[in-house]
């Protein structure tokens, strides 16, 4: 009951953020369920005569005989292929749906990992203070000094391209800002009476940080978690655009591939880039709205 009332309150007060939440939810739903619902596989190729052509059911000898020009290359929109096909005759809409899965997985996981690690480091740095704080903050300074994409390029090259590696690399980038935010919240909390009370009855540092400080930084954590998903989706799209991310269909990769066919089929680049923009927009608006509600001190720093 309470959940519904607060949701209704949020929707009434924060119209733009609600629109954002709807966008974000749509992208998540498409990313999670889309690949199961899609009638085709992401690597299926289609011919002009038979739009439902399936290479797995085709006799391989027949495939050899078939003329490659008969493949539906870069075809326009049709009932079978609402966005048409790409330069290999694959269904664009299906590939967009698989791209949504990659973007959502990478964006959400990287933000979640960064929020947790950043919170732990931020609380330790803020609560212990002194040399520990100084050292941690200089390391964060160093991480933040390297331009984001340069650091990302370095990190994703340290192993075979994979979803996990991209998530880890983006999480490393995200730890800095989370640590800063949680640290400053901890500095305020440290001086609160309830922390002093806990200390006076002999609670250890670990207990104070874990049981008294941590629950109180959840608000800022949620704010920066939701606000950073959009940034991560953008960064992953950049990597895919440079062909340095995960192999397989991705929005950034589709914008890059479509650039060769801008004059004949601009839809490829336009649709994929539009999807990135709408997804990032949705998560950013939601993040802004949550920040206004959960962290009133930062209100007004955005739109």
């Amino acid at each position, binding site marked *: 009951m309470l959940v519904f009332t607060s949701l209704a309150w949020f929707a009434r007060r924060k119209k733009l953020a609600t629109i954002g939440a709807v966008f974000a939810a749509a992208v998540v739903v498409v990313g999670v369920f889309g690949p199961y619902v899609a009638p085709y596989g992401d690597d299926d190729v289609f011919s002009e005569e038979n739009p439902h052509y399936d290479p797995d059911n085709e006799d391989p000898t027949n495939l050899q005989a078939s003329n490659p020009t008969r493949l539906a290359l870069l075809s326009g929109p049709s009932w079978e292929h609402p966005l048409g096909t790409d330069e290999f005759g694959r269904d664009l809409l299906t590939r967009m749906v698989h791209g949504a899965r990659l973007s959502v997985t990478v964006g959400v996981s990287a933000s979640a990992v960064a929020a947790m690690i950043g919170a732990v480091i931020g609380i330790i740095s803020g609560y212990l203070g002194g040399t520990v704080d100084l050292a941690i903050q200089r*390391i964060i300074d160093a991480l933040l000094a390297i331009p984001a994409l340069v650091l990302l390029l370095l990190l994703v090259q340290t192993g075979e391209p994979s979803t996990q590696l991209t998530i880890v690399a983006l999480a490393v980038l995200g730890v800095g800002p989370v640590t800063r935010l949680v640290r400053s919240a901890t500095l305020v909390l440290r001086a609160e009476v309830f922390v002093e009370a806990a200390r006076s009855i002999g609670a250890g540092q670990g207990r104070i940080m874990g049981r008294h400080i941590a629950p109180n930084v959840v608000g800022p954590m949620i704010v920066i978690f939701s606000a950073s998903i959009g940034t991560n989706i953008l960064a992953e799209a950049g990597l895919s655009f440079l062909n340095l991310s995960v192999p397989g269909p991705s929005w950034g990769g589709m914008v*890059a591939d479509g650039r060769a066919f801008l004059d004949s089929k601009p839809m490829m680049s*336009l649709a994929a880039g539009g999807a990135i923009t709408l997804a990032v927009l949705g998560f950013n608006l939601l993040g802004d709205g949550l920040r206004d509600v959960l962290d009133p001190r930062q209100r007004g720093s955005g739109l």
Partner: protein
Amino acid sequence: MTNYVIRRVLLNVAVIWLVMTFVFVTVRILPGDYAAAQVSERYFGGGAAAGESPEEALEKARERLGLNDSIPVQYAKYVRSLVTDDLGTSFATGRSVLAEIRHALPYTIQLGTMSMIVGVLVALPVGIISAIRQDSLLDGVLRLFAIGALAAPSFWTATIGTLVVLEYGILELNIVGNPGIWEDPWPSFQLFIIPAVAGGVSSGALVMRMLRSQLLDVLRQDYVRTAQAKGLRARTVILRHALRNALIPVLTVLGFVFATLVSGSVILEAMFNIPGMGQMMIVSLRSRDVPVVQGLALVLATGVVVVNLLVDLVYLQVDPRISVGGAE
């Protein structure tokens, strides 16, 4: 004040040392090395020296490039190369990394400057109009434009730019060579304008949002009402009284904007084949040209650190409300 500056500079030196070491370690983790790439290319692409096995060639190449040294020795050599050797020698060209960077720098500076100009041209008028017409339809449209520009990837806006140019044929897209702005201004401008607009619009949108919220704060202050009450023209009140004060907090995001422009230039330079530092980063990283990767990352990070330091120091100067260390 002097103590504060000295302390900040020393801390930043420590930060740059950390960056240097971090990049050094990360680069050692990268799978494969330059020697292996070169030798395999020589053996599979022809041109191998007669009577030499791939293993021998690999060993020789590694020895020559210093890749056989132990990690501490490599680190010591690396640190020494920063001081005595112009940041080390590129494996690929045999020239010093500093010379390579000096060659690429003008292109990146040109892209960055043109992006900044676009960004300011977007941010100033749009931010001011949006603030003085708060909550009007125009304000709504402009804010929507800003959040849209922040969400759109620059490589996509640049693609749309290319599409528009293809459609209307306003610009020449096939620019041969890499014309510099001083030698061939017009071809150079045509090559850079699409990436500059794409990069500039998103950083401009960031500044615009900041400027709008700051202006809204400032416009409610008493001294603005005083200026209005004196009968000053609206334009004078906004430009001379309000804007000056609203711009001060905007200064703080400049370091971030700088880092964003550098990040953006990596993709945009690769996309438009501009031989700047961003493209150099991608090329050297792909070929495992370790000294170039290390040198570039160090130079770019130093740039960010210096810009942030300058912003903080300028901030102290222009905003007398902020003081450091109490007693001054």
